[in-house]
């Protein structure tokens, strides 16, 4: 952790996360075939592509949920084989999954700390116990920090609406992230107003110095929110440009390939 903080402070360290020529096959389907992206600290990178272009697969490789078949990942310029989700978390990388990855029977606080619970000692240090008070307090604080009030963090996720669940997944990632956040369609289940809040959260996370990768189908919004756009088509990165240099029409053309739809299938 200490090492990460030091690295994150280095202004000229290049991209925080870099994926170069990533390949991934599922059986004989080539999900990724030379996918690349680079995102710097303090920057929002929108990852755009048609359904099946490989966006989710690429984020899952970066966050350690999947192992790549080829290519290289670099964190602050250093080639790194991300061995597991835990490893990525140790590198300061947090992920908001498309399916949110929440345990419905656990409480909001338990979900936000799952895998990283604070412990305390009882009976003169002999018996370990979950420090639930600390979990509750810090979870409530993190939710408030991204503008969410849930009533009680003791409610189980099962009792919450889709939008509330999504908010918890986002708040969890923001709470733990030390260097980067990957978000796979973080506004999919949200209404207009809630979406606006998540976009605010994304921007403020980047302003705090985090590198943010967002997968989204809302291309017009990405053009205004993101600093740069990476476009995937059929498992390959076909463009990585500053958002300011792209128009909606250009993005759509790049995303679908050539001058229209024939390649999209």
């Amino acid at each position, binding site marked *: 952790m200490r090492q990460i903080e030091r690295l994150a402070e280095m202004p000229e360290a290049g991209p925080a996360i870099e994926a170069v020529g990533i390949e991934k096959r599922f059986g004989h389907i080539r999900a990724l075939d030379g996918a690349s992206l680079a995102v710097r600290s303090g920057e929002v990178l929108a990852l755009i592509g048609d359904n099946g272009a490989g966006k989710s697969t690429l984020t899952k490789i970066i966050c350690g949920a999947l192992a790549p078949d080829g290519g290289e990942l670099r964190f602050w310029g250093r080639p790194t084989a991300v061995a597991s989700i835990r490893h990525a978390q140790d590198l300061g990388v947090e992920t908001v999954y498309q399916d949110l990855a929440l345990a419905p029977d656990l409480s909001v606080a338990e979900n936000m700390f799952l895998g990283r619970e604070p412990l305390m000692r009882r009976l003169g240090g002999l018996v370990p116990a*979950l420090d639930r008070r600390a979990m509750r307090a810090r979870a409530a604080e993190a939710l408030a920090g991204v503008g969410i009030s849930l009533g009680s963090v003791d409610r189980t996720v099962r*009792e919450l609406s889709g939008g509330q669940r999504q908010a918890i997944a986002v708040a969890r990632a923001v709470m733990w992230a030390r260097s980067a956040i990957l978000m796979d369609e973080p506004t999919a289940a949200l209404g207009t107003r809630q979406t606006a809040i998540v976009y605010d959260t994304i921007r403020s996370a980047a302003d705090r110095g985090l590198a943010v990768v967002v997968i989204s189908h809302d291309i017009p919004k990405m053009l205004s929110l993101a600093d740069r756009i990476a476009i995937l088509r059929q498992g390959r990165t076909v463009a990585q440009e500053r958002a300011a240099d792209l128009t909606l029409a250009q993005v759509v053309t790049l995303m679908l390939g050539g001058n229209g739809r024939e390649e999209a299938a």
Partner: protein
Amino acid sequence: MNGLTLDPPAAGPGPLGRALRSTPVAMALVVAVLILGFGALSPNWAFLRTSNLSTITLNVSVTMLLAVGITMILAAGELDLSIGANVVLSSVVGAKVLVALSGTPDEVRAAQYPDLALGVAAGIGAAVATGAAFGAVNGLLVTRLRVNSFIVTLGTMGIGTGTALVLTNGSNVPYVPRLLQTEFGVVRLFGVIPYPMIVVLAISGVMLYVLRHTRFGLYTLAIGSSREAAERAGIRTLPHVFRLFVLMGALAGVAAFLDLTRFATTNVGGHQTTALAAIAAVVIGGTSLFGGRATIAGSMVASLIPVILATGLVILGVQAFWQLIAVGMILIAAVAIDQRRRERLK
């Protein structure tokens, strides 16, 4: 900006309302009503005599211990049908080791046990180790072969029972010292609490703590609630599930030795419905069959119901077999009520 508008916190029930809605408390009320009801109906309140209540706790001890273990297994969304077979096999191995180390064959045949302390210690170790090994086999098959635990433990149930019968040629292990029974199995602390029950309560207390207050417990529930979410949180789910089966097996080994002390004999033809009785108690107590929600207190209280019913019916002069019918109906009713309640929650 008032945030992701999340509906105002529901005006929740007060502490009393919450307590009444919790299954363990509801079950405790059912148990209390049953006890008082049978007490009032029995001649001279015979049901409420200390000796009767004490016998009930003795009769329930092994089932309660197994129910506590099954609670952990169900919490993780798994199932173990093999615990009855495990108890039989572990008690056979424990008894054989105990008898073999307590004296020479001639001595034990004459009911002489010069090395009883050694034999008992080794017998306990052998029973618990056998149980844990049985559980480890279950755990390996579930996590390595990725076969559903219902099927794996249905298979090992037969394998375990068969192995016990092969080891003993189908008859009980002879020359188990009666001292086990007279000095421990049926002895009561202050004339009230049977010694086996003290062991069961102590272990249950530890398990209650583990489930509620430790990472191990939280991860168990997380795996049962959403294995995907647990894995994404960095929890290594397969080793965890393996450990749960070993734990369950070790508890079955303890149950096996308690059984041995209580009857001073093995019971190679028994425990055929033990697993189902324990699972029924756990589900009646409020643990979800599908994982994620579990209550050890509920399991402990609910495991009392069949024994209370059986004893009460006998005292009332009704055939005890009605107990089976009543428990069956309670099981179905409990799950139906629980489902209703959760649908309303959603």
